[in-house]
């Protein structure tokens, strides 16, 4: 089992970036690697509660984010500074996450075998 970190930095509907990252995270969980997913910058907005993009015709992938735990993806990390930048509190988020300062993010990266930025 290796440690794999998926990095997300794009805003929720910037192309399919977050959805590609979600797929990658779920696949590594499915093949039983130790997967982590780190949200930084505008990507933290993908964890925001109360979004309903179905009226726009856009796939509501927030539902899948909510089911990450069921698929044994427990290592969801969020950049503390980015939450502040977007005025979000932990209670504004869809799921329970680990909020990390920069030092903790660096440490997380250092313990990985592979890091993929999507």
């Amino acid at each position: 089992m290796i440690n794999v970190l998926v990095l997300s930095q794009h805003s929720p509907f910037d192309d399919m970036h977050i959805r590609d990252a979600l797929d990658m995270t779920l696949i590594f969980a499915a093949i039983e690697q130790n997967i982590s997913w780190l949200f930084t910058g505008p990507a933290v907005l993908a964890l925001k509660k109360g979004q309903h993009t179905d009226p726009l015709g856009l796939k509501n992938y927030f539902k899948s984010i909510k089911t990450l735990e069921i698929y044994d993806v427990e290592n969801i990390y969020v950049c503390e500074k980015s939450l502040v930048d977007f005025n979000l509190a932990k209670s504004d988020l869809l799921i329970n996450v680990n909020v990390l300062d920069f030092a903790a993010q660096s440490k997380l990266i250092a313990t990985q075998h592979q890091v993929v930025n999507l």
Partner: protein
Amino acid sequence: MSTLHIFSKPISYYATERLANLIQEHDSVLLVGDACYSTYLYRQFSSDLLFLAEDALARGLTINESDNALNYADFVALTLSTSQSITW
């Protein structure tokens, strides 16, 4: 002679300093898509921000009565009441 500036992403996607200098006081700034998440960060571009109501609502934002929330008919009208548009 005013310009319509259209933004579709959070402000960190753009060259903020350069744009703050380019956008004129009488210009219009319209936020669509993912730019609606953080309208307040766009205040440095304009004191009178416009945004697309349905894009903001889909993203879980509440619209206040004082907000300049537009529908698509307004968006079209806005492109006609300004001299030219730039999609940044």
